[in-house]
Structures are given as structure tokens and as C-alpha cells.
């Protein structure tokens, strides 16, 4: 009998110990081999400095599938402790859903945060004024063009002054080289890219550059939105943009990874990652001397002005229901380390948010990114609000209708407005 009791007590003690051991394991969600490779050294540092076991859970790619799994697990209450969020436009909605733990106090007390560029800190602040994410890298987006192709055809490589100038340049490219002149990601297959890598480039330079009003509603009926869709329509109607690949299941593959390197597409919106991941040293189809062969233009304004689009690059966040909340917050700070920023920049090509990287020889070796990081603080960005995911999907649907030539610009705008109203309610749209 005594043996039985002793055995039972031992079993209970072992299960308690096992429970303690589980409590010291941090589960981290990531996707894509490049991201995992970039994060692995940081995971090792976390284990060493925090005395925890870091379990990296590979989530599905592409981003849409990643978000589906992550949100489903967050809703079910069994999500990882720490995770990256591929689309920064999803952050406000995740905050509203109560999935993310506030980390503003921790970031304010963390010495490394003072070196972050202001634009990164501003982008990290949610509509409620609190910070929920570590804005460790930025996506600095512009228009990337094949300088070699344009110079060979005698086409100007000067910065376009306006949308009309940009459209004329695209027409000239098509006429003189036969290549598609300009790509703006569009359609539902591209997921959040239709909004973040396409629509956003134009709306910031339009007559209504912000779509979120001061009271957090969406103003989507403005002339700027209409003009943006008209610009898309002009590109499509004049056959300046490759349409068919955008309607396929992985719409970025053919234009970005095949047509642009071959010179069949002469210009496209992209971020600093294109110099490393898409066409640079980490690419499966690299363009030799990419920084020489491929030039950049800022996004021209509708009438005038130049804009460089800044956004958070896959910010890290802590699960509000994490069993290891405090530990996860400490780990979050490690994701903001200069080391992690540089390792991520080297693998993926995003721009580190900390000015401290400028003094680091490892970052100085990334010659493609150094000038972009120095200019990061001049980036322009769209104000965020709860419901941004719906706007993003609405833009994808509206641009898909344009791709399929089912509607004019006004019809596309109506699709966007109707979708957002149906999803968020009439009261969410001004």
C-alpha cells in the first residue's frame, strides 16, 4: 500500500516537474525557410540568455495560409507564445480581437528602442495608442526598374514627376522594347500584397492620401481612391501590365521571379528585399550586378511630389493568452536586437529599424541596403485602423474586377466600398 502511495506521489511530482519544464519552452511561429534561417541565431541567443527552450514551429506559406493558421489558433487559444505577423495591415484587427499583448511599457524601458527610427516607432503604435508589436525591420518600398533595358532602348531613367509621367514611361517601354512597362500587384490571389504592395503606392500620392479619418472610420469614396483605380485601368487597358499571371494561384512567381529577371517586365513596385531575396544573392534566379542593372524610382505623386512607402516588415508580437507571458515579452525584446535585425536584413533584405546598425560592419557589408536604411526616416505611411484587413481584401477584389475587365474605375471603387460596408458595417465607412 505504502509503495502504491509512494508511486502515486512520484508520478504527481514528475508531472508537476514536466509542467514546469513545459512552462519554460517558448513556442515561436515562423514561415518560410529564409525567415527561419534568419531567426535561428536569435533563438539560440534567447535560449542562452533567458534559460528557455525555443521551439520554432514552421507555419505554412504563403502569408495568407500562415495567417489562417495563426488566427485560427489564436481564436482557439492554442497559438504559439511569440509570432511574426507577415502583413502589418493585420495588426490593428488582431489588437481589436484581443490576440496581442501590449508591450509599450517594455519597449519604453528597453534601451535598444531609443535607437529605432521614428517612423518605425510610429508605425508600431496601434489606433488605441498602445504598442503591441516589435517593429524591428521596415519594408521600404519604391518602384524598381530595369535600368539596363531602358538605357539600351534610349528611354529616360529619370524620376517620373507624376502619375501621367509614369504612365507615359510605361507606354514608351512597351512601344520600344515590347516588355510590360509597369506592374502593380493586384487581385485576390496576391492576398495583402494588392493593398500593401500596390494600392498603397498610389494612394499616398493621390488627392486623398489617407483613407482613415481622425475618428477611425474609412473614407473610401474620395477622388483619390477613384483616381488610383483609374490608373490601374489605364495600365490594364493599354496592356502595360501582365494580367494573366496575376489571376493565377501564386501571382508573384511569374512576373517577379521570371519576367523581371528576363527583361519581359521593365518596372514593378517592390521593397528593399528585392535587391536581396527576389533578384539578389538569396534569389533562385538572381540578376547579375542587381544594384547597377536595377534602379529605383520613388513613387511619384498624382500631380507632383515623391514618396517612399514605409511599412513594418513582419513585426513580432506576443500572444495575449500565452502561458509564459512575461518570458515571451523578454523574448520579444531579443527579436529587436541589432543582431536579429542584421541577420534578417542579410537573409531577406528588409531594412533594420535601429540606427545602431549603421555602426556595425556586418550591416555596412550589405551595400544594397545601407543607403535605404539611412533614408528610412523619410518614409511615408498609411494611417492604420481596425478593419484594415477588410479594406485590404476590398482592394484585392476591386483590382481583380479591373484585371478581369469587368468594371470601370468607379465600379471598382463601389466594389471596395460595398465590401468594407458589408464586412464592417455601414458605420465603419464615412
Amino acid at each position: 500500500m505504502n509503495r502504491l502511495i509512494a508511486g502515486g506521489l512520484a508520478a504527481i511530482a514528475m508531472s508537476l516537474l514536466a509542467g514546469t519544464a513545459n512552462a519554460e519552452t517558448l513556442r515561436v511561429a515562423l514561415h518560410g525557410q529564409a525567415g527561419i534561417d534568419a531567426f535561428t541565431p536569435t533563438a539560440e541567443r534567447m535560449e542562452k540568455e533567458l534559460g528557455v527552450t525555443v521551439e520554432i514551429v514552421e507555419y505554412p506559406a504563403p502569408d495568407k495560409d500562415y495567417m489562417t493558421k495563426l488566427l485560427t489558433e489564436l481564436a482557439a487559444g492554442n497559438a504559439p507564445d511569440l509570432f511574426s505577423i507577415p502583413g502589418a495591415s493585420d495588426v490593428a484587427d488582431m489588437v481589436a480581437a484581443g490576440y496581442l499583448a501590449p508591450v509599450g511599457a517594455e519597449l519604453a524601458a528597453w534601451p535598444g528602442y531609443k535607437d529605432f527610427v521614428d517612423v518605425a516607432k510610429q508605425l508600431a503604435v496601434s489606433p488605441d495608442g498602445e504598442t503591441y508589436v516589435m517593429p524591428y525591420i521596415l519594408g521600404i518600398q519604391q518602384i524598381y526598374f530595369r535600368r539596363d533595358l531602358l538605357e539600351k532602348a534610349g528611354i529616360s531613367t529619370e524620376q517620373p514627376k507624376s502619375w501621367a509621367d509614369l504612365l507615359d514611361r510605361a507606354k514608351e517601354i512597351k512601344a520600344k522594347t515590347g516588355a510590360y512597362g509597369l506592374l502593380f500587384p493586384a487581385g485576390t490571389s496576391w492576398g495583402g500584397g494588392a493593398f500593401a504592395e500596390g494600392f498603397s503606392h498610389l494612394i499616398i500620392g493621390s488627392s486623398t492620401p489617407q483613407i482613415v479619418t481622425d475618428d477611425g472610420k474609412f473614407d473610401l469614396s474620395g477622388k483619390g481612391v477613384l483616381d488610383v483605380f483609374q490608373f490601374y485601368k489605364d495600365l490594364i487597358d493599354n496592356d502595360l501590365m501582365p494580367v494573366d499571371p496575376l489571376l493565377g494561384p501564386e501571382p508573384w512567381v511569374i512576373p517577379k521571379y521570371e519576367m523581371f529577371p528576363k527583361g519581359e517586365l521593365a518596372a514593378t513596385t517592390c521593397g528593399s528585399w528585392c535587391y536581396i531575396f527576389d533578384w539578389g544573392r538569396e534569389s533562385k534566379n538572381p540578376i547579375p550586378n542587381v544594384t547597377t542593372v536595377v534602379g529605383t524610382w520613388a513613387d511619384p505623386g498624382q500631380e507632383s511630389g515623391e514618396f517612399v512607402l514605409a511599412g513594418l516588415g513582419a513585426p513580432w508580437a506576443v500572444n495575449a493568452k500565452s502561458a509564459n507571458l512575461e518570458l515571451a515579452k523578454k523574448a520579444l525584446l531579443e527579436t529587436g536586437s541589432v543582431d536579429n535585425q542584421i541577420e534578417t536584413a542579410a537573409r531577406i533584405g528588409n531594412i533594420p529599424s535601429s540606427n545602431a546598425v549603421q555602426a556595425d560592419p556586418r550591416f555596412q557589408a550589405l551595400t544594397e541596403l545601407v543607403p535605404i536604411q539611412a533614408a528610412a526616416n523619410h518614409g511615408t505611411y498609411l494611417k492604420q485602423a481596425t478593419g484594415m484587413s477588410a479594406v485590404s481584401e476590398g482592394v484585392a477584389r476591386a483590382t481583380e474586377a479591373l484585371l478581369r475587365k469587368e468594371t470601370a474605375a468607379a465600379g471598382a471603387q463601389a466594389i471596395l466600398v460595398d465590401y468594407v460596408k458589408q464586412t464592417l458595417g455601414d458605420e465603419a465607412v464615412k
Partner: protein
Amino acid sequence: MAFDAFQKRRERQLLRLLLPALIPLAVLIIYPALYSVYLSMTNEALTGLAAAKPRFVGAANYFRLFSDARFWNSLFVTFVFVVGSAIIGQFVIGFIAALALKRKIVGGSVFGAAILLPNAAPEVVAGFMWISMLAGGDHATLSKILIALGLPWADWLQTFPLFMVTMVNTWRGIGTAMILLTAGLSAVPTEVYEAARMDGANPRQMFMRITLPLMAPTIFLYMLISTVSTISVFGLVYALTRGGPGGKTEVISVYIYNQSFTNFQLGYGAAGAVVALVVSLALGIAYVRSLKVEV
């Protein structure tokens, strides 16, 4: 009196015997179906305010669904997909295969095994395999074969997306059709054929006047099963095209998935699922009632 008591005891015994099947049925099928109906009347979502505080919206999701052109498009695509792959493709080829197997041709067993092979591959695996055959323009295996033969090629999943998806699903379902129809054929008494032959009937007459009428219950049972199962095909289409290009292959199951897990609107997606359930039920009831199929 004693008989009544015996009857009641027997009924209780039967209920006890059925319980192991009834409990999972109630927990895993009936409850989720009823919960879907409830969910379809809320604005429940996976993210945003509605995830934290979902509210009852009545029939609003249904009104929205019926005014959504993409939903009607998905119903049309599903109709073409079901008629093309299940009713025409799988049935016709499966029936031919079943007839061929009945004739004891040389290599019949190998033929039967080969035609069953597509069923061994899971939906998604089959989908990815066919992507390598069809996707990528001149890089696709099919295009390379045609180029080698000097024939024109196409970007198959872009140019003929619904036809290609229908063809792949036909390929995958032939085995099931063949098994069911072979079973039906073997149930037709050989004496009837012998009598017809003695009366001078030719093969065509025997097929039209004996085989088909006697096979009718089996054929329509197959139609019922294949229609309902094809309406719910998801993995194959999602792996091949994700519903694209431009919604041209967005069958109802992919539409529901896209609304629920890509747009994260669980309530709205549930409304689509309820409609799909009603359509499947209606088709099933119509088959059973109009043809008096014993199931």
C-alpha cells in the same frame, strides 16, 4: 401484455446497440451542423472587433450572400464541375471500364488496378502532381510533351481552368464509379441476356433494354453519392488553382473556405456552408424520391 413488454425491451436493446453510432453522429455531425446554422446568423470572425465581440445579425449574412455575384458564380462553377466530372466524366468512363472488365479481357485485372490507382493519392497530393503537369506554360509537362510532338501548347490552368479541374477530378473518381457500376453489372442475371440472345436481340438492344434498365437503381445511387461528394470536393481544386484565375474554378467549397479562412468571416462563411448543405440535401432527396432508390 407480455408481448408489449417484450417489444419495449427489444426497442431499448436496439437503442443501446445504436448508441455507439448515434453519439458520435450527434456530437460530430448534427451538433456542428446546427452550430453552423447559429454561426451563420452572427458576424463571428477570426479577427477584428467581431472576433472579440460577435453579435447576432439575423438573416443579414444570407441577404448579403444572395447579393454576392461571387457566390452565384461559385454555384454555377460547382454545377459545371459536378455535371462535367461526376455525372458525365466519371460515370461514362467508369461505366465503360466496368463493361470492359465484365468481358474478361486480357489484362483486365491490371486495367482494373490501374484505373483504381488515382484513388490511392490523397486529394492535395494529386493536385500538386497535376500542377506539375499543367501549370507554368511551356514548363508544364503536358506542354513539353506537345512541344516535343510539334503540337501547340497552352498555359492550361490559365486558359482552360475549369475544364482542367473537371478533367482532373474525373481522372480521380473513375475508380469509384467503376467499382460501384461493376457491382451493379454483376447483379444483372445472365439468364436474361441468354433469353434475349435466343430471341435474336443484338448487343445494342441488350444494352439499351436490359443492362440500362436493370442498372438504373445502381446508376442513380452512384449519381447521388458522386453528386454530393463532388459538391464537397475542396483539396483538389484548392491545390490546383485556389479557385482562380479570377474565380473561374471557385467551387462552393473553395468559396466557403475563402470567406471563412482567407477573409476570416466565419459567420458569413457559415451562411455559405448552410446553403451548400441545403443544396446537397435537396439534391439527395430529389434523387431518392423521384427514382425510389433504396438507400
